């Protein structure tokens, strides 16, 4: 028991950032703060700031916004009425004149006033370095979203919003969530704003960024609805859920004859079956991938429309998934991980060659390796049967690991995106000199090369650390249009008009 040195006592919680500019949470809340004085000061500062810097450019959302939650009470009323029509009618006729007056005279205007005010106090502006969203009626909140940290831009159009011609725009930066969405904007404004955000993030001069306009899109891939349907029909998981939904409820009925049990199990099953078949079709309908200097454009959706733009160099991991029944047709699904983005699909279904060409575009200079080195035979003692599905290949640019026997899953991580490398080994694995190699990436995805030879893994560990360091050095700048000198030949790059 040594007496602590004096400074140890004061060392309660000491945090420091090696790289101050890369704070994990780029969104700072200036409202909802206990310190009222500081809050007021910050608000005033922010306001003065905004006024002086770009007062003319501070904008409001589309006027349809206040109505975006108007459907909720109506839906609740409609739901209750449908649930028990007789009682609803009785209640309605029994309602006195005063209570009707109360609803119409107080509740509706109050709700309308709240909707209007919350729209009125919400502003957004684009400065040279950030997108600012100022909002909040009682608790002010100002989000400063840094443009150079931009990972992707999403434009979403829910079904109802399509009738009004409005869309939601979200800038994906690590740490942003649905609060930082701009909902709603008119379609034209959203496109212009997206173009401006991307131009500024790309490193165009601030004076011209406003006029750069949309980058030209080159069509790369369109998934035919027919192909999509066939691919869904050939998915084992879809069949399993649909069959379960069709078989389990009748069996339960025969066993229990209880409506409650039937509904409690049947409905979720049917829901899951629907979501995995019809839901996926609706979501993945009309899947279009385009390439532009601003990166990849992904558009899809039958009812809700989604448009995503992923700038170059933002993809952390790519997975090529090959379900068993797709193998004869040579189809694959390509998933991708972008930090801070909720979309994880690049192509729902495509022939392997097309998919690989697309992957080469997403990860420049990467070819999907054909041959992988298998796990050593003694891995069978650790993981019987399934060890045959494991494979690994490390090229100059990517770390590639494969898992899965029936549904093969090939994961590619560019060396430049590797955050840390880990080896793990349990007692049973050590007995057979087997080790797992984990590669962690920034999108909170870990790719694991399973059941490698222990010596090989140890060599891999140090080599991988070196590769990830040099890989990053050669990677493109975050502001992808800033220094064209670094572009490699074969990159999907072109000059932009304007």
């Amino acid at each position, binding site marked *: 028991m040594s007496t602590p040195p004096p400074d140890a006592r004061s060392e*309660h919680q000491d*945090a420091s950032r090696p790289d101050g500019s890369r704070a994990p949470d780029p969104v700072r809340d200036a409202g909802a703060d206990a310190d009222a004085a500081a809050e007021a000061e910050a608000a005033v500062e922010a306001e003065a700031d905004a006024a002086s810097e770009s007062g003319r450019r501070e904008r409001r959302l589309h006027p349809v916004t206040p109505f975006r939650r108007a459907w909720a009470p109506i839906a609740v009323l409609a739901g209750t009425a449908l649930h028990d029509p007789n009682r609803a009618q009785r209640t309605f006729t029994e309602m006195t004149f005063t209570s009707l007056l109360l609803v119409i005279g107080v509740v509706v205007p109050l709700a309308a006033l709240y909707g209007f005010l919350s729209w009125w106090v919400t502003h957004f502006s684009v400065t040279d370095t950030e997108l600012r969203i100022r909002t909040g009626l009682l608790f002010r909140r100002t989000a400063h979203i840094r443009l150079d940290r931009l990972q992707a831009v999403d434009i979403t159009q829910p079904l109802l919003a399509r009738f009004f011609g409005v869309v939601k725009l979200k800038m994906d930066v690590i740490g942003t969530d649905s609060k930082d969405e701009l909902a709603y904007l008119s379609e034209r404004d959203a496109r212009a704003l997206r173009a401006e955000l991307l131009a500024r993030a790309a490193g165009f001069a601030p004076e011209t960024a406003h006029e750069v306009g949309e980058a030209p899109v080159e069509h790369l891939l369109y998934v035919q609805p027919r192909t999509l349907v066939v691919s869904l029909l050939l998915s084992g998981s879809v069949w399993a859920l649909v069959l379960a939904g069709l078989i389990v409820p009748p069996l339960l009925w025969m066993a229990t004859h209880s409506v409650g049990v039937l509904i409690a199990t049947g409905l979720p099953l049917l829901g899951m079956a629907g979501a995995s078949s019809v839901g996926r079709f609706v979501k993945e309908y009309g899947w279009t991938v385009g390439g532009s200097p601003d990166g990849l454009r992904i558009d899809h959706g039958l009812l809700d429309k989604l448009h995503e733009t992923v700038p170059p160099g933002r993809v952390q991991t790519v997975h090529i998934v090959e379900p068993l029944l797709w193998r004869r047709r040579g189809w694959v699904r390509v998933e991708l991980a972008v930090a801070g983005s909720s979309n994880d699909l690049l192509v729902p279904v495509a022939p392997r060659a097309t998919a690989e060409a697309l992957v080469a575009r997403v990860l420049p200079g990467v070819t999907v390796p054909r041959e992988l080195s298998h796990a050593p035979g003694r891995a069978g003692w650790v993981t019987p049967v399934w060890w045959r599905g494991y494979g690994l290949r490390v090229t100059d640019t990517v770390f590639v690991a494969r898992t899965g026997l029936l549904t093969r899953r090939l994961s590619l991580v560019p060396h430049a995106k590797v955050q840390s490398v880990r080896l793990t080994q349990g007692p049973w694995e050590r007995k057979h000199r087997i080790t797992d190699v984990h590669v962690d990436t920034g999108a909170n995805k870990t790719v694991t090369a399973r059941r490698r030879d222990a010596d090989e893994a140890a060599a891999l560990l140090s080599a991988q650390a070196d590769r990830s360091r040099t890989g990053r050095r050669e990677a493109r700048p975050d502001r992808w249009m800033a220094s064209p000198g670094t572009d490699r030949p074969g990159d999907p790059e072109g000059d932009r008009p304007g």
Partner: protein
Amino acid sequence: METGTAEMPDTPDTPDTSGGEPAWIGLPRALLSLRRLLLVVWLTPLTVATGVLLGVFAGPVWAVFAVLPGGLMAWGWLLLGRNWRSWRYAERVDDLLIKRGVLWREETVVPYGRMQLVEVTSGPLARKFGLASVQLHTAAAATDATLPGLVPEEAQRLRDRLTELGEARSAGL
């Protein structure tokens, strides 16, 4: 319990600099003392209580069951020692290496340029023992690079060095 025990080639406090291997540094002995103290503090009353209660209410023969928590304590005493000995870290030119675990081993490499945040914490008990822990965060949440107990001067030196190297080699996402 002796399955898979590979004896460590050197004592943790003497860095091995031979043969191009990085200089491994172990954790201070105070950490082991702290953990053993905690073990004893929790299990001694349990042992005594088991023995006394069973002895009084169920007969003296039953008091033999007090051996169980006692044995657990002895076993834990040895386990903690081995676990403590297994922890080691090394600073290389461009990355930090952390090795740990006896049965389930883990080895982590974090390039300095990927560090987002270096955190030094020490609770009241740890401070009494002159210990502070250092944790590194990268953009990947799975990165588990923690040194559970270091002498405060070493923790500060490491923090400053990591911060400095992180700035020099900054790479981010």
